[in-house]
């Protein structure tokens, strides 16, 4: 029986590795093959402290997990700006460095590693010394359950929603006000800490910490467990760990031939098994978002969503009845909400922006027009901080925002839409809109997005009631916005399956959800047919009436005519004319530049 307890124990320890890796790879999209190396950091810290200084189990465990977490945070800093392929490379480098160090430093035992001097002792908790496999079962179940619960809470909450947004489209997430940097650092730190925890447990279980216990092949095995179990599904990770860990003992029982060959054959079958399993079920044993309740619910609602996705914006709320977006303009405020002076940006030899000046009047719609290549989208990128300007000032409500990161600018009240929409395709429409909505609060623990509720770890774990309430309110608000744009019927449909027109409307709802004062819309009417265009233009006008300041980039003169109070004409990086559309179209030079003819 102890034989099976032993196998179960290893499955549990590797589940901790796999669950935490899932949070990193599956939810955040950060591909890492250094997971076992963080286990090494944890395991070696615990080994060193317990053998050299006689530290007890619990303090050693805490030290190991903390040390690994810290290392994870440190690794996340260079990882922030790396694309996925380079991130993998970084994790390979980290893994090799960690293993080289623990394998070569004499104090850490070199290739022989360090052998434990004492068994794990659970005092002051009940359980005493853990000597035999059966004694480990309950503690390991507890550790695994803890890991599962924490990771699940993080992954399936508003916090996890932001993670998934970062995974699917980091740029869009940033533009909505998500502090991507902070989220990445936290997720690296937390998942590495769990890896460190598992590493400490491995040390105590095997009573040895040596480089081969935490090698690159172990990282790859954990990686396989996570992928095979199903990215984005923690139960799947436990299953994946169980299947892969059980393969060897199963094969040992089945293949009873000469030992010299048996072990080799087992490995051949194991390798082929991986190939076959991943082919048969590439999405993993349990795909993302799969849960029994969810499966039943979606089965029932399938019929409803079918028809909804074909509906064009029916049942759009009459605009005057809308309850959101209360008028905000106060008489004392300055009429100019965004003041741009001397904005410049060069790319090598090309000057995309040359001393550009712009004023946006509060509660008015401005249009930015000009021939292709004039630099209009670049201006939006510069204003929202997606690109760093070389020179100039950008004052939003009197506050200088040039040089601030995009998410800070978004939280300060200036957001933009994208020409290619950039919805989070794997999430539902309502989730997309919820990602725009933030309950900003000035409290010090409202970090990293400055919000209350599930996006804030303190609330998530310490004040679950607040988190639930905020989540409910956010969802209600999101539904309001979806109703406004007439898409409440497709709220629970995956955004990636919606038509382009519907996506544009959802992205608009998302933008409105941010409650930002300044909305920069990049070609809001392009790529959709006239019926949709009317909808969107109506919404734009409505928002202006509610006190929002809007600037649109547009090619269509008709749209500009209909909406814009002021028009800025942009040529080769600077504003060469401004006025009403009538004034500009009566200028022969401009029409020639724009249309190519008078």
């Amino acid at each position, binding site marked *: 029986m102890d*034989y099976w307890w032993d196998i179960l124990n290893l499955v549990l320890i590797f589940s901790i590795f796999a669950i935490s890796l899932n949070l990193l790879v599956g939810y955040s999209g950060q591909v890492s093959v250094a997971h076992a190396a963080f286990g090494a950091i944890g395991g070696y810290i615990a080994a060193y402290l317990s053998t050299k200084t006689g530290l007890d189990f619990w303090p050693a465990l805490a030290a190991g997990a903390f040390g690994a977490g810290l290392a994870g945070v440190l690794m996340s800093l260079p990882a922030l700006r790396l694309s996925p392929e380079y991130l993998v490379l970084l994790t390979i480098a980290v893994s*090799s460095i960690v293993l080289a160090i623990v394998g070569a*430093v004499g104090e850490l035992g070199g290739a*022989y590693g360090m052998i434990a001097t004492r068994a794990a002792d659970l005092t002051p908790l009940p359980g005493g010394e853990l000597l035999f496999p059966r004694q480990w079962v309950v503690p390991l179940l507890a550790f695994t359950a803890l890991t599962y619960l924490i990771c699940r809470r993080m992954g399936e909450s508003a916090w996890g929603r932001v993670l998934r947004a970062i995974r699917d489209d980091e740029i869009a997430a940033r533009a909505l006000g998500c502090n991507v940097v902070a989220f990445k650092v936290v997720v690296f730190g937390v998942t590495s800490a769990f890896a460190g925890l598992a590493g400490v447990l491995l040390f105590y279980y095997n009573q*040895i910490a040596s480089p081969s216990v935490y090698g690159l092949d172990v990282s790859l095995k954990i990686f396989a467990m996570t992928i095979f179990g199903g990215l984005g599904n923690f139960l799947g990770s436990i299953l994946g760990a169980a299947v892969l860990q059980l393969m060897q003992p199963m094969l040992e029982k089945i293949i009873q031939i000469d030992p010299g060959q048996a072990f080799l054959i087992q490995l051949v079958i194991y390798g082929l098994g991986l190939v076959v399993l991943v082919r048969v079920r590439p999405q993993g044993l349990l795909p993302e978002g799969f849960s029994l309740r969810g499966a039943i619910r979606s089965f029932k609602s399938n019929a409803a969503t079918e028809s909804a996705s074909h509906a064009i914006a029916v049942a759009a709320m009459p605009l005057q009845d809308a309850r959101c977006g209360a008028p905000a303009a106060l008489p004392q405020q300055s009429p100019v909400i965004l003041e741009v002076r001397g904005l410049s940006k060069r790319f090598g030899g090309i000057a995309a922006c040359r001393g550009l000046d712009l004023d946006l009047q509060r509660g008015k719609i401005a249009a930015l027009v000009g021939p292709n290549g004039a630099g209009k989208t670049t201006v939006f990128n510069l204003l929202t901080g997606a690109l760093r300007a070389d020179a100039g000032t950008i004052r939003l409500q009197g506050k200088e925002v040039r040089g601030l990161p995009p998410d800070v600018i978004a939280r300060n009240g200036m957001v933009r839409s994208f020409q290619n929409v950039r919805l989070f395709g794997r999430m539902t429409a309502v989730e997309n809109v919820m990602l725009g909505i933030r309950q900003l609060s000035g409290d010090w623990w409202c970090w990293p997005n400055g919000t209350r509720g599930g996006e804030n770890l303190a609330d998530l774990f310490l004040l679950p009631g607040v988190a639930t309430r905020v989540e409910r309110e956010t969802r209600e608000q999101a539904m309001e916005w979806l109703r406004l744009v007439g898409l409440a019927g497709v709220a629970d449909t995956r955004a990636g399956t919606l038509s382009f027109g519907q996506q544009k409307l959802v992205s608009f709802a998302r933008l409105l959800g941010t409650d930002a004062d300044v909305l920069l819309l990049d070609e809001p009417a392009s790529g959709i047919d006239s019926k949709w265009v009317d909808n969107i233009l109506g919404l734009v006008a409505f928002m202006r009436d509610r006190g929002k300041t809007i600037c649109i980039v547009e090619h269509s003169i008709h749209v500009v005519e209909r909406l814009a109070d002021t028009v800025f004409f942009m040529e080769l990086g600077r504003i060469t004319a401004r006025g009403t559309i009538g004034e500009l179209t009566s200028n022969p030079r401009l029409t020639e530049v724009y249309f190519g003819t008078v």
Partner: protein
Amino acid sequence: MSAAAESLVAIVACAAGLAAPRCARRSPSNLAFAQDTAPSGAGGVTGDQITKVLGLDGKNLGTGMHFKLGIVLALTGPGSYYGRIQGNGAKLAVAQIKAAGGPDIELVFKDHKSADAQAGARAARELGIDGVSAVLTSYVGDIGAMFPGLAQYKMLALDGGGGTSDFGKPFFWGMRAIEPDDDFTGALKYWKATDPKIKRVSLVYIDQGPANEIVIGNFNKALADTGLQLASSEVTTIGATDYSATIARLKSANPDAVFLFNIGVDPGYFMKQFVNAGLTMSVIGAEYISDAAKVAGPAYDNYMFATDWFNAANPTNPWSKLFLDSYVKEFSLEPEINAANYYEDTFAMWDIIRRVLAKGGNVKSGEELQNALIANPKFQSVYGGTASEVGTIELNTTTHSVTKRPLGIYMSNGGKPKQVASFGIGGTDFALIK
């Protein structure tokens, strides 16, 4: 395989009776797989022959008793070649023991995947759970990973592969001379005795972490004892194939001789590059295996080695001859040090079992087995001895390491190593062979 596991190729000192071409390699032509699937026969040896050569008195043999003997080897990974050879030796012994009236020994094989610590820890646990009381280990108990399990489940372990580099571990006993500490004592004496021009010696040795200091300390002491000087010392990684940096440094240090302590196939790669770099000083190593000789090719012509090697060309006592003949018959290969060690260690286990049975004790208790060992730490050996007397191996009950073991200096001699000197543990009784 991880970089670490891959690079820990064989912490097993090997020697190989080598390369008569008929023995060099099994052709895969008539087998589905080329691994040894020879039936575990006794190689044509009868029970009577064993009884006679070992001088057994027929009492307390343990006839018909079922005994589980764990055996933890490198069955996969870079060292799997050694695992196979070691397994051969044990299997042969098991068959011969049974034929001679001994117990039905069941070899419980476990794979430590060439120095995977986790596999080793698991193997120890599994054997313990299975109620095994005795184990043959390798790689120094899989680089120490098995020590905790051996102590916890109280299983007596003999390691004829890596011996022991760590002293006094409970239940763990190394059955080999200490590498390189015992080896280089003889090597230095050899240089002193044969070439007065050799004054400065370099030491090239593998990284063993905390043991490095001990190795260098002992080397310096041995140098002082023989009146030689240290030219330089270089550390290499176990399993490295590229020695260009080390050799460049040796070139600068320009010693008169080099003692090479690396293991497995490493000396082969080293010598190949050493010779190709145009270096000609005398090299004595601590290992010789046919694999390394193959890798080195002609670069091994002037290579010498000092170790407790099993010389298949010259069996020293009647039991060695019996072993040699039966091994060749059974496996169509000449036995190497690995096979010889596991063969005689299995017999040593039988000896211990007999002692426990004589006292009416319980052979399923690892403690009782160990006590029987401690009471008389001497066993019969295929090494040493004389034409009429079987050799003996003696262990130290404090360090759990050997005190008596014949070592020798050999020239590689184009594939049939020739002995040129002999000495004992610690370099005692050094004598050139005329």
